[in-house]
C-alpha cells in the first residue's frame, strides 16, 4: 500500500511538471504563467480538483510512441470562484505546445459534459499551437467533439474563453462559439491561418499581432470581448465577471447585498444632456451613476464604441445594460454596433438577466460601406434579439430616438415592459431639419420658411409627449431620479412571466 501511495505521489509530481522546468522557465520569460498556475489564480485557493491527470496520448506514428507526458497538454477539472462551482480547462503550452490530440480532446469533452450535467460555468484558458499533426484525423475528430459540446452548452451554461498565448487553426472555433472571449495584450493572438500561410497564399506580410492580437480582435474585428494587460489581471477580471452571472439558464442571476441606496439621487444627471442637441456626452456617466457602487463590467469596450454593453447591479441584482454612446459616431447604429449589442442582448435573455436600455440614437448609419456590408441583416439581428427577449426589459430614452432605430432599441412595440423618457427625449422619424426638407419640399428655395417649419416640427416632436400620449412611453421621469425609478421598475418585473411560441429554434438573420 505504502508503495502505491509513493508511486501515486511520484506520478502526480511528474504530471504537475508538465513539459519540464526548462519549458516552464521559457513560459515565464515570455510573460506567461503555466496552465496550473493560471488555474490557481482563477479559482478559490485550494478548490481545484483535477481530472485525468494521468491521461496520455495513444499515438505511435512519427516517433510519438516515445514521447508521453501525463496530462497530454491540457489541465482539466473543477473548483470554485467565490464559493460557486465552475469547470475549467487550461491548455499547457509546455507539453507538446499545448497541441490537441485525441486524448487531449477527450479530457476537454469530459469537463464540458460535466459542466452541463451540473449546470455550472465553463472557463477555457487557451495557449496552444493547434492540432497534434502527428495524430492526423484523430485530432480533427477531437476538435469537432469539443465544438459540438460548446454548441450544445450554448445558452445553457455561461462559457468563457481566455486567450493567453497562441490560439490558431482549429483551436479558434471553440472560443468562437463561447459567450465571451478575453485576450491578454501582447502575448496572445488568434487567427484561422497564421502569417506564414497568409504570406504563401496572398503574398501579404503581416505580424502575429497585426493579424490576430488583442489590438485587432478587441478593437477591429470584434471577435474578442476585452483585453487585459497580463495573465494576472485577466484572471482577476474573469473572476469578477463570473460574480455577475448565473451558473446556468436554470438559475436567476446571483444577488448580493448592496451598500448603495436604491433611491440614491444624482442631481448632476439633470445636466448630463447638453442644451445643444448635437453635442455629445458620455453615456457611461449615466450607467456609472445608476448602477450599484459604480461597478460596471463592460463588454467589448474598445469595439463598436457607439454602443455600450455590460453588466451592472441594481439593488444587488445583476442587470445587463445596453446604451447608445453619443461620444462615438453620435451613437449611430452601424453593422458592428448592431452585432455587438444583439449578441449581448441574447446572452442576457438566455441567462435570465434583465435588460436596461438607454437610448440616444440618431438612426442607422448611411453609406455604401454599411449597405454593402449587410447593414440590413446586421440591424435586424438587434431587432430580433430585443423582440424575442422575454426577460424584464426597462428602457429609458435620454435624447434622440429617431426612425427605425427607435423601434429597435427595446421599444414598447418590441415588448419593452417599462419605457421611460427624460424630458429631453425626442422621438421622431428623423431630425427636424431632414423631416422638414422632405415634408415641405415645395419650400426648399425659401430658407426662412423652412426654418419656421423646422421650429414647428421640433415643437411638435422634439419632446417625449407625443409618444407618451400614445402610451408608447409609460412615464416621463426626471434624470436625477433615474436610479430609483429603474430599480423600482426592475423590482416590479421580478415575477414577469412571458414565453415565446414553441419552436425548434428561431431563424435569426445571421
Amino acid at each position: 500500500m505504502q508503495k502505491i501511495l509513493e508511486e501515486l505521489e511520484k506520478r502526480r509530481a511528474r504530471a504537475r511538471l508538465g513539459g519540464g522546468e526548462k519549458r516552464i522557465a521559457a513560459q515565464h520569460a515570455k510573460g506567461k504563467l503555466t496552465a496550473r498556475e493560471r488555474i490557481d489564480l482563477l479559482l478559490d485557493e485550494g478548490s481545484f480538483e483535477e481530472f485525468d491527470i494521468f491521461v496520455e496520448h495513444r499515438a505511435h506514428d512519427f516517433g510519438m510512441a516515445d514521447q508521453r507526458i501525463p496530462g497530454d497538454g491540457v489541465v482539466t477539472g473543477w473548483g470554485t470562484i467565490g464559493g460557486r462551482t465552475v469547470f475549467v480547462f487550461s491548455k499547457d503550452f509546455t507539453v507538446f505546445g499545448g497541441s490537441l490530440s485525441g486524448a487531449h480532446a477527450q479530457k476537454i469533452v469530459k469537463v464540458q459534459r460535466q459542466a452541463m450535467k451540473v449546470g455550472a460555468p465553463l472557463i477555457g484558458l487557451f495557449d496552444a499551437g493547434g492540432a497534434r499533426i502527428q495524430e492526423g484525423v484523430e485530432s480533427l475528430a477531437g476538435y469537432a467533439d469539443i465544438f459540438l459540446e460548446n454548441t450544445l452548452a450554448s445558452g445553457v451554461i455561461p462559457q468563457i474563453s481566455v486567450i493567453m498565448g497562441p490560439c490558431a487553426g482549429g483551436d479558434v472555433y471553440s472560443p468562437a462559439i463561447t459567450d465571451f472571449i478575453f485576450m491578454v495584450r501582447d502575448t496572445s493572438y488568434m487567427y484561422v491561418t497564421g502569417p506564414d500561410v497568409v504570406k504563401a497564399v496572398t503574398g501579404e506580410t503581416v505580424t502575429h499581432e497585426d493579424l490576430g492580437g488583442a489590438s485587432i480582435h478587441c478593437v477591429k474585428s470584434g471577435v474578442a470581448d476585452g483585453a487585459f494587460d497580463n495573465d494576472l489581471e485577466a484572471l482577476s477580471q474573469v473572476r469578477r465577471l463570473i460574480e455577475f452571472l448565473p451558473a446556468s439558464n436554470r438559475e436567476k442571476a446571483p444577488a448580493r447585498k448592496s451598500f448603495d441606496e436604491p433611491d440614491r439621487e444624482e442631481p448632476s444627471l439633470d445636466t448630463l444632456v447638453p442644451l445643444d442637441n448635437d453635442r455629445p456626452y458620455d453615456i457611461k456617466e449615466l450607467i456609472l451613476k445608476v448602477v450599484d457602487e459604480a461597478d460596471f463590467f463592460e463588454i467589448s469596450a474598445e469595439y463598436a464604441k457607439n454602443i455600450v454593453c455590460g453588466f451592472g447591479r441594481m439593488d444587488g441584482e445583476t442587470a445587463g445594460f445596453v446604451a447608445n454612446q453619443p461620444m462615438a459616431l453620435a451613437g449611430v447604429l452601424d453593422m458592428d454596433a448592431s452585432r455587438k449589442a444583439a449578441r449581448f442582448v441574447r446572452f442576457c435573455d438566455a441567462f435570465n438577466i434583465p435588460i436596461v436600455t438607454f437610448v440616444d440614437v440618431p438612426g442607422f448609419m448611411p453609406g455604401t460601406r454599411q449597405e454593402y456590408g449587410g447593414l440590413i441583416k446586421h440591424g435586424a439581428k438587434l431587432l430580433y434579439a430585443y423582440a424575442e427577449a422575454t426577460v424584464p426589459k426597462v428602457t429609458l430614452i435620454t435624447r434622440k430616438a429617431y426612425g427605425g432605430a427607435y423601434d429597435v432599441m427595446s421599444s414598447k412595440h418590441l415588448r419593452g415592459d417599462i419605457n421611460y423618457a427624460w424630458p429631453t427625449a425626442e422621438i421622431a422619424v428623423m431630425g427636424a431639419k431632414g423631416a422638414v426638407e422632405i415634408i415641405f419640399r415645395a419650400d426648399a428655395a425659401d430658407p426662412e420658411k423652412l426654418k419656421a417649419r423646422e421650429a414647428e416640427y421640433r415643437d411638435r416632436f422634439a419632446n417625449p409627449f407625443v409618444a407618451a400620449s400614445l402610451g408608447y412611453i409609460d412615464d416621463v421621469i426626471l434624470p436625477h431620479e433615474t436610479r430609483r425609478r429603474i430599480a423600482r421598475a426592475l423590482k416590479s418585473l421580478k415575477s414577469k412571466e412571458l414565453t415565446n411560441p414553441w419552436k425548434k429554434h428561431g431563424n435569426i438573420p445571421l
Partner: protein
Amino acid sequence: MFEKILIANRGEIAVRIIKTARRMGIATVAVHSDADAASLAVSMADEAVRIGPAAATLSYLDAEAVIAAAKATGAQAVHPGYGFLSERAAFAERLAAEGIVFIGPNPRAIEAMGDKIESKRFAAAAKVSTVPGSLDVISGTAHAVKVAEVIGYPVMMKASAGGGGKGMRIAWTRAEVEEGFTAAQAEARGAFGDDRVFIEKFVSEPRHIEIQVLGDRHGHVVHLNERECSIQRRHQKVIEEAPSPFVTPAMRAAMGAQAVALAKAVDYDSAGTVEFIVDADRRFYFLEMNTRLQVEHPVTELTTGLDLVEQMIRVAAGEPLSFGQEDVRLDGWAVESRIYAEDPYRGFLPSIGRLSRYAPPPEGTYDGVVVRNDTGVGEGDDISVHYDPMIAKLCTWAETRDAALDGMARALDGFRIEGPANNILFLSAVVDEARFRSGKISTAYIAETWPDGFHGLEPTAFQADAMTAAALAMQRLQGLRNGNGKAFRSDWVVSVGTIKRPLQVRVDGAALEIAIPGERRTLRLDGIDWRPGGALFRGVLDGKAFGASVAPAAEGFQIRMRAATARVLALSPRSSELHERLPPRKPKDRSNRLVSPMPGVIVALHVVPGQAVKAGETVAVIEAMKMQNMVRAERDGTAATVDVAVGDSVAADQVLATLA
C-alpha cells in the same frame, strides 16, 4: 448704499461677490454667456442677463453689452471682479457717462497703473525702485532682440495689458526671443485684444510678495499687509499665503508705506494690489499695480477679518473707510490653494470636461482650522475651453502656519473631483514638502523641487502601512459582503507599489491586528469607516487617524494618500508567489509618436511626410485656453505620417504625426 448691483464676471468671483452683496441687502444681477446660462452664479443672482455667446470677446469682454444689461435691469453699480473688464479705464468711463458707478478705482488711476508700461513710467517718476527694463512698447522681433541684448539675458516678455501670468514669456537666449516674441504678441492679442509687449530684466530666484491696499474717495489709503505668492507654475500662482514667512515687521511697514504712497499719488480709491519682486536680501522692487480685486484676496480677508468686496462696495458708494492703518489686524495664518483643471503630470497643461464628480470638503471651523472654498461650479458643470480652468479656491486659516498647512492637507484629502484632470495631488505634495514647510521658497520653487516634472510621490512609511491595512480591511469587507469571507485568512502578502511584505493578520472584533514578521512589529487598524463601493476609506492606524481615496483596479486597489498613489494588492502567499514569476513588462517605446499634450486646435504644422526632424524641433503648435503650446520631436527621425491639419480640433493624446 446701492439697492442693486451688476456683476460683470463669471465663475467663483461672481458667486463670491453675490454672497457679500446678498449679506449687505443689495440685489444682484448676473450677466452670462451662452456657456454659463445654467451656472451657479446665474442661479444665485436675483436677475440674470445673457450678454453673448461663449467666446469671452463676444460676451464678458463686450463692454456695451454689459452696460446695456445694467441699464435694462436698473443696476446702480457694476462690480467687475478680476480679469475681463476689470482694468479697462474706458469701461469705467463709459459707466460713469451712463450714471452707473464702477465698483473699482477711478479711471485715471486705472490708466496710470493698469497699463504696465505707463505704471513703470509713473513709478519711476515717483522714485520707486523698479527692475531694469524697456519702458517702450516693442515694435517687432528685431527690436525685441535689440532691447534684450542691452538689458542682458534672461529677459521677460510681458503683455502690456496682461496679468495673472498670461502673455508672459522668459527668454534665456537670443534664439528664444526670436522664437517667442511673435507668440507672446499673439497670446496678448488673443487674451486681451491688445498686442503690446514690453521687455524687462528677469530677476532669478525672486519671491513674489504683494501688498493689498484699500483707498476711499476721501483721500484715505491703508494697506492690509502682504500676501506671499511665490508658488507659481508657468508664471501663474497656485498657492498663496498671508502673511509671508519671509517678511519681517519692519519690512512689512516699509513695503506698506511705499504701496500706500504710490496709491495716494494716483488718488487710488478702491481695493488694489501693489506687486513687488523681493530678492534674497529682502530688497524689494515695484513690479506693477493691479487695480482690481485679486484672485487671492481671501487670504487677506481671513487674516484681517475684513470683507474686501464689502469694502469696495462701501467706498464706491462714497462711504469713508471706517478704520485707520492702526486698526488693521494680522491674525493667524491663511493659505489658499487654487484647484485647477490641469494635469500636473503633463507640465500642468489645462484640461477640460464635465465635472462628473465634484465634492469639496465642507466649509466651517474644525479643530481650530477654518475651511473656506470659493467656487463657481457644481457637480455636472463643464470646465470649458472658453475660460480660465480654475475650479475652486480652497482656503484654510489657523493660528500658525503649520496648523493652517496641516488643515489644508486634510481639506485637500477630502476634495473629490472626477472628470477633468486636476492638480489636487500636486497641491498636496507642495503642502507637505519640507522646503515649502520651511518657508525658504522662490518663484522657481516648483521648477527646482521637481526639475523633471511632477510625477507623484512614493508613499511614506506610514502611508505604506496605512494603505496595507486599508487594502486588507477592504478585502475582508468585500469577502463578508459576497458571503465567502467567514474565515478571513491569517497569512497574507500585501504589495504597495513595489514594496511587498508577508503579514500575519488577526481579526479582533471590528479591528485588524497586522503583524509584520520581517520588521518585528504589529499594526492595529481601528475605526474602519468604509463600505464596498466607497471612494473614501477612513481608519485609525496605531492611534493615528487617516483618510485615503480608494478605487478598484484591474487587480487589487488604487489607493491615494496625500500626493502618493499606489496599486495595492492583498494576496495569498501562493498568489503572491505566482505574481513574482511574471517579469514586469517593459513599456512600449512610443517616442516615434508625436501626441497632443492637451485638447486644443492645431494652429501651425511645421512638418510634412518624408521631412527629416531633429529631436527638440517644433513639429506642431496647439492652442487651447488662449495658450500656444509647442509639440516637439522627442528624437531624430523622418516624418512617416502627419495625421492632422491646421485648424483641426485635437484631443489629448491624439497622434499628430509619427516618425520613422
